[in-house]
């Protein structure tokens, strides 16, 4: 069983009406209590006046009987006079006088200590017939005799007025709450209307329609903020989707190229009878493309694992110079072959904390790039420096043709190649630098390129340096 209403606006209105009802009941109750006190104190005041009047009207008969002169009143038939209860006791409790209305009833029984002494004592009592009364007592001396005068009025009219008030509230409160419900519901509905609109619009957003945006993002209120945050998220999503789409299309293009070659070479080879050597050549040529496909697929796998965060870095302390030396050393023979020079300089003590293999991959890719694009006889320089804020920077500088300014931002993009036509001879599918960028960024580093046409390229990697206290680990 569900006790919670499903709709937000119903819940809002319900809680609002509940609070209102509680407040109204509180206010109403407070009013009743105040009113009752007020009326009762009026009754008390009246009783006090009465007592003052009555005091003067008592007289003692010669037989010592206490009598009340009844002829004094301006309005003897006045309701208050008729309906009052009057009793006079001696301090020891003996009844000296009771008026007709009281008859044989008792007004409060034995006097309590201090009753009516030096003022008026008020209290609420219940008569033997059940009538609730308000009694005021006063100790009065008549000819030296102490008389405890008690005078009371019925409280029943007070209670009946209260009752009427309560009855009225039983009618008025639900009406008020009903009105509050209706207006509250309307208000909640109006306040939530933008959310409904947003929900409707959000429902229409699918991977194919990511360009849609939520409405109400131009307001400054909470909903506007929500819409803006949501729209920003959508923007990033759209960008990611677009990137993915481009990646898929680029990847399939890259895969298609070797496939097309394999196919053509195979089909053409089958068209005519060839010698054994010719067939070997054809198969060899096809296998070359297969190798290209294999390495492409492997790079794609690395990228997809990197994208999905599946590559866990095996962090150790890595001496940077050793890593650089190793990366350059790998291509030593190519450098020698092209009569290039490799310059390696930097502080041997610098080290970073990271996955040696992943970092090495990044360096190897960039150095390979530099060797590939530098003309014969030029120098390739790798410089390891201590950057500010405990960062280590690695600069790889070549003297190649450089990269035009408009292309510089794109060099780290997947499948990007400066010279589309030349890639097959130089090898690679334009993934090396994007893998390098990923590797560096996975270590909390940055990679940047500065280049001027005909002045070569400088790749600058900046990585957080290892803490000095990890020095001990290398020694181990």
């Amino acid at each position: 069983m569900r006790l919670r209403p499903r709709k937000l606006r119903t819940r809002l209105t319900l809680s609002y009406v509940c609070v209102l009802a509680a407040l109204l009941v509180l206010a109403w109750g407070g009013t009743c209590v105040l009113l009752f006190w007020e009326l009762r104190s009026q009754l008390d005041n009246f009783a006090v006046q009465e007592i003052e009047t009555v005091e003067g009207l008592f007289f003692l008969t010669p037989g010592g009987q206490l009598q009340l002169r009844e002829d004094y009143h301006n309005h003897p038939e006045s309701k208050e006079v008729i309906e009052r209860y009057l009793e006079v006791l001696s301090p020891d409790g003996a009844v000296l006088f009771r008026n007709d209305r009281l008859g044989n009833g008792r007004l409060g029984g034995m006097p309590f200590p201090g009753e009516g002494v030096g003022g008026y004592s008020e209290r609420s009592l219940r008569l033997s017939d059940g009538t609730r009364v308000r009694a005021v007592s006063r100790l009065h001396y008549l000819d030296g005799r102490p008389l405890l005068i008690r005078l009371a009025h019925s409280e029943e009219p007070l209670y009946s007025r209260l009752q009427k008030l309560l009855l009225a509230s039983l009618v008025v409160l639900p009406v008020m709450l009903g009105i509050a419900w209706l207006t509250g519901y309307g208000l909640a509905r109006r306040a939530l209307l933008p959310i409904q609109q947003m929900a409707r619009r959000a429902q229409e957003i699918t991977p194919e329609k990511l360009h849609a945006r939520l409405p109400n993002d131009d307001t400054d209120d909470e909903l506007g903020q929500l819409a803006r945050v949501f729209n920003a998220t959508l923007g990033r999503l759209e960008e990611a989707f677009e990137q993915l789409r481009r990646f898929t299309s680029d990847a399939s293009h890259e895969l298609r190229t070797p496939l097309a070659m394999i196919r053509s070479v195979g089909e053409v080879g089958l068209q005519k009878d060839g010698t054994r050597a010719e067939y070997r050549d054809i198969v060899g040529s096809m296998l070359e493309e297969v190798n290209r496909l294999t390495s492409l697929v492997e790079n794609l796998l690395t990228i997809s694992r990197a994208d999905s965060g599946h590559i866990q870095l095996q962090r150790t302390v890595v001496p940077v110079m050793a890593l650089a030396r190793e990366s350059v050393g790998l291509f030593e023979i190519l450098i020698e072959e092209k009569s290039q020079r490799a310059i390696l300089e930097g502080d041997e003590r610098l080290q970073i904390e990271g996955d040696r293999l992943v970092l090495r991959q990044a360096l190897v890719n960039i150095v390979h790039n530099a060797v590939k694009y530098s003309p014969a006889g030029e120098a390739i320089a790798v410089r390891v420096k201590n950057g500010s804020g405990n960062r280590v920077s690695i600069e790889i500088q070549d003297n190649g043709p450089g990269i035009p300014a408009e292309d510089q931002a794109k060099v780290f993009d997947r499948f990007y190649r400066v010279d589309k036509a030349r890639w097959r001879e130089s090898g690679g599918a334009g993934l090396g630098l994007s893998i390098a960028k990923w590797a560096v960024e996975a270590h909390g580093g940055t990679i940047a390129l500065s280049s001027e046409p005909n002045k070569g390229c400088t790749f600058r990697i900046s990585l957080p340096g290892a803490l000095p206290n990890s020095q001990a680990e290398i020694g181990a």
Partner: protein
Amino acid sequence: MLGTGQLRSRAFRAYKGSVQILVVEDEQKMAKALRDGLEADGYAVRVAYTGEEGFYLAQAQTFDLVILDVMLPGHDGFEILSTLRRRGIRTPVMMLTSKDAIEDRVRGLDSGADDYLVKPFAFPELLARIRVLFRRGKPDIAERLQLADLEIDPARRVVRRRGQSLDLTAREFELLQYLFLHKGRVVSREMLARDVWQETTRQTPLDNVIDVQMARLRRKIDGQFDPKLLHTVRGVGFVLQEEGGS
């Protein structure tokens, strides 16, 4: 084409025809290629196309080696392997996996595989791995090796062609020694990258480096001599033998 002169281990004496290999592979084409390739190399091959059949055969008959694909319908290769090992069958097993995941490698070796190979692999690599499995535990060739008039002496790190001492760099010597180890067989660039350059990842762009290194080695050992001994097999790799091709 088999240069069997130096092969002395028991497994290699049994080499021609009597080494029994069980191939468990559900892809028909792949299975056929494996069978043809292994048979061409002198092994006796039995193929099982399902995991169940492979499991049954491996239990019922004695094989010298099981080549087991990981991705099999029904029970995968890991399951089959661990069940075999639980039943006390100690036949060497080489796993073929298409997942290049470290976890798979660990899992493969944990479940009792003797080696694993990631698909797509180069066939010469498979052959080389099989030879290594049979040779496991035996010392590497450390004595003088000879092919035609080319000799190397691994202990003294000396290379001679037609009696003339050749001046090789350390890397060139390692390369030549590796080629001698696989004499008469094609070695792929991947094998060279891993075994000679000690590259653990296949993504390192080493192809150019290997080609240049190989060209230099060829200049030194074949440059002014005949017959040519170091040959390039297009699309596959390199081979050290007397005639071109294979």
